[in-house]
């Protein structure tokens, strides 16, 4: 069997059954990267020497019975905003183009401890600001389904790498949809956990109160497995929560009978592509056939989610990105006169236009005289949005809708109109504002053959319901991956 066609969990099983070695798995992935990544550009950094060294070490541990977990020996790709000790971590920005961290992010360390092999770091929108991976300082990533299209963003490199079989799974981060939307565009599974479930220690912050790390995988089983591995309380992250129900693989049950699923009418209005609408409603129908109780309801305030998000995220980003000043690490301008000139030139040359736009927006909404009118109002709106979801979850176990209004747009069509790009986040953003978990599962393709994602949203800490419904859907539809498409 083609090694690359394995899911992460299948691969680890095959390794433990000695059908293949970790080295062979790493080799297969690196060969695939060699063949495809010149075109796709999923990776900013590929470290084959380190990958082989890890492979050897992990193989020994597997052989000695020290590593028996479901991810042992599985090659993984990490979004380039998660710190990896001794490995370049750039956030796809010129300003961190030479940055090598002194420590590894907690979530990545947990994967390493489980025996996953880090292949490299994936391309993204600069500092996770963007929805297409086109704002990267290191070139665009192309969608493996059609290289004229974007992979989505900001975790576009991670989603495309999974879809192109350049890794067996990947980590992404989601501040306003940055895992779910590229997962949807690339036809893979992507989950954004409840805020606080996965440690943010070592994740280079964009919007600290919204950022969450999560898995991008080929299957729902892989998704639950990876989440189970990376979810844990971390005393190094004050916003990390203590929860005991992290045995997510227990929710891999093919049963939705009696599950109450709400469909917000507001998610199917103007601007939604008809192919996407059809595919998502068909998915809802599938779940209904399997015994779920599906009904429509009103979820107000959705229209306020976008301005609210761009105010809060930009405010936090403007402060979070202040540390990139050319003094301690990262890019410093060649010539300058005095301290302030050095700051100005290093930052002007080091940051790209989308990052600058959000820094300026954030600095503006926090400045005295505007703070109340923008930032505080956004915080109040956020609380109202949370309340609207709270009410919905008194009636429903899950909320079902599209991930994005359209399938992946063609390259170069988004950045010219940032406002339009921001509006594309409409279905994903409210989930971050309310701190909820959300999953994107492939549910078909449009007329042009581009993948469509189904979004399921749960109440806080209800990832198991998401996983159970997504798993049921996946089993019913017989799975849906780029490989399956290729064989069709």
């Amino acid at each position, binding site marked *: 069997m083609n090694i690359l066609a394995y899911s992460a969990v299948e691969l680890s099983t095959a390794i433990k059954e000695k059908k293949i070695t970790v080295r062979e798995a790493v080799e297969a992935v690196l060969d695939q990267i060699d063949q495809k990544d010149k075109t796709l550009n999923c990776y900013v950094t590929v470290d084959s020497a380190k990958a082989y060294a890890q492979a050897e070490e992990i193989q020994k541990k597997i052989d000695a019975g020290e590593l028996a977990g479901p991810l042992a020996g599985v090659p993984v790709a990490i979004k380039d905003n*998660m*710190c990896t000790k001794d490995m370049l*971590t750039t*956030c796809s920005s010129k300003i*961190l183009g030479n*940055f090598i*961290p*002194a*420590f590894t*992010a907690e979530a990545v360390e947990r994967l390493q401890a489980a025996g996953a092999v880090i292949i490299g770091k994936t391309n993204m929108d600069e500092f996770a600001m963007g929805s297409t991976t086109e704002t990267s300082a290191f070139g665009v990533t192309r969608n493996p389904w059609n290289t004229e299209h974007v992979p989505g963003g900001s975790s576009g490199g991670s989603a495309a790498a999974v879809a192109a079989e350049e890794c067996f799974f990947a980590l992404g981060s989601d501040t306003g949809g940055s895992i779910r939307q590229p997962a949807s565009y690339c036809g893979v599974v992507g989950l954004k956990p409840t805020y606080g479930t996965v440690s*943010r*220690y*070592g*994740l*280079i*912050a964009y*919007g*600290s*109160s919204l950022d969450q790390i999560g898995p991008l995988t080929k299957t729902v089983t892989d998704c639950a497995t990876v989440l189970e591995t990376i979810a844990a309380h971390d*005393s*190094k*992250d*004050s*916003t990390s929560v203590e929860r005991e129900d992290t045995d997510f693989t227990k929710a891999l049950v093919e049963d939705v009978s009696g599950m109450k699923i709400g469909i917000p009418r507001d998610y199917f209005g103007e601007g939604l592509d008809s192919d996407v609408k059809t595919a998502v409603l068909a998915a809802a129908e599938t779940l209904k056939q399997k015994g779920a109780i599906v009904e429509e309801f009103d979820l107000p305030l959705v229209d306020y989610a976008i301005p609210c998000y761009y105010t809060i995220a930009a*405010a*936090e980003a*403007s*402060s979070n990105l*202040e*540390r*990139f*000043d050319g*003094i*301690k*690490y990262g890019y410093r301008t060649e010539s300058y006169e005095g*301290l*302030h000139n050095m*700051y100005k030139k290093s930052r002007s040359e080091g940051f790209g236009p989308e990052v600058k736009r959000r820094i300026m927006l954030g*600095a503006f909404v*926090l*400045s*005295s005289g505007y*703070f109340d009118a923008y*930032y505080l109002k956004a915080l109040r709106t956020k609380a109202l949005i949370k309340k609207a979801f709270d009410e919905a979850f008194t009636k429903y176990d899950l909320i079902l809708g599209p991930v994005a209004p359209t399938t992946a747009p063609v390259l170069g069509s988004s950045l010219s109109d940032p406002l339009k790009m921001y509006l594309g986040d409409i279905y994903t953003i409210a989930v971050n504002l309310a701190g909820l978990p959300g999953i994107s599962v492939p549910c078909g393709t449009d007329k042009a053959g581009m993948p469509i994602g189904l979004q399921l949203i749960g109440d806080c800490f209800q990832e198991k319901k998401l996983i159970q419904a997504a798993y049921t859907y996946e089993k019913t539809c017989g799975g849906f991956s780029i490989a399956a498409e290729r064989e069709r």
Partner: protein
Amino acid sequence: MAQKIYETVIGLEVHVELATKTKIFCGCSTEFGGAPNSHTCPVCTGMPGSLPVLNKQVLEYAVAVGLATNCNITQYCKFDRKNYFYPDNPQNYQISQLYLPICRNGHVEIETAAGKKNVGIHEIHMEEDAGKLIHDEWEDCSLVDYNRSGVPLIEIVSEPDMRSADEVIAYLEKLRLLIQYLGASDCKLQEGSMRADVNLSIREMGAPEFGTRTEMKNLNSFKAIAHAIDGERARQIELLEEGKAVIQETRRWDDNKEYSYAMRSKEDAQDYRYFPDPDLTPIVVSDEWLSEIKAKQPEFRTEKIARYQKEFDIPEYDIDIITSSKHMADLFEATVALGREPKKVSNWLMVETMRLLKENMMDPEDIKYSPEHLAALIKLVDDKAINGSVAKEVFEVVFKEDVDPVQYVEEHGLKTVNDEGALRKTIEEIVAANPQSVEDYHNGKEKAIGFLVGQTMKAMHGKADPGMVNQILKELL
């Protein structure tokens, strides 16, 4: 024209470095000194991806200081980011508190020659200290040492309630003592663990409105504070008398030149874009924890003075000096608890200890010796095992190195010779060798016996009991 009478209006912003072992948001040591950047980690150097976690001891100290200064404790409080670019601040924002400071609306009572009064405390907030910039003139570059970055501070902001340098100093003394008694800081102005910025304005006596104020920084001693206040008052009066306006600005005091100069005016004031730090969850001080901290509040100076007056038969003056330092008061009580007479313990503190502190330019907080060793020394004297002059000699070593006086006396053979036979034999020899003095004594020259005592002590290397020497001499003569 009648001379105008001006009133000085002063408010203080006092920064106090808290005595925690580790920094406010990471586990790095707060120990002073150390090679540059040796007490640092990804958190206190602002590395990408690092996150702050609040040191609970900082919160406890801040609450304790708030309770001691009669503040309301904000039981739901938050940290905010103060954004400004400067290399000593690795994140380019300082984590501080603006919107919900931990303590508000307190006061302390001060006493000066003018009488007693309350000084209001507007708020106390927690924040992190910055690193230190070192300008290397030789290499023409600047270097940053982040060892101090993240050291916990509280800032105590007073109301503009003080009217003279005397009141300011009384207020600072009061804060210093309260905080020292709490063990929350050693509050040393010279070393920067307590820093005071003085906000000062003047107005005509009786005027309802405050005048325009200036803020003075870099005041490293009570003396500098007093001089700076007098100087700034005079400067502002002169401006007003000349018909000029006081400009709201920050001024830096130069202690050598005894002059302040303008650093920046209000027009240059930065917009710090404060907002709640999303990396730190809101702090909830539970009722239970608050009462625990309350229960742990120590006996403060006023209460201690009252108790000493009742319990110990020592002079008021001694009580005043001993209680002016928590460390000294602790030492006093512990030594007394070991069974020594309060008056004797007090004497060692008041006389020899104070003398050595002065000679070595040390503060009472720097006293190193243990109550056990002081008690042992006093016991040696009480038991007549050593005489007074030997005791002083031994005390100097105890003071310097905190040695065990019993062991020291033993090792150095300083014990008083109580062997009457040996002493009598020495005295017999002295008497035989000094017939002239013996004769003088018999001729009524009482002083002659002093000479013979001295000779005996010398021969005994100071280790004889002077009483016994006198007694034997008189017998022999």
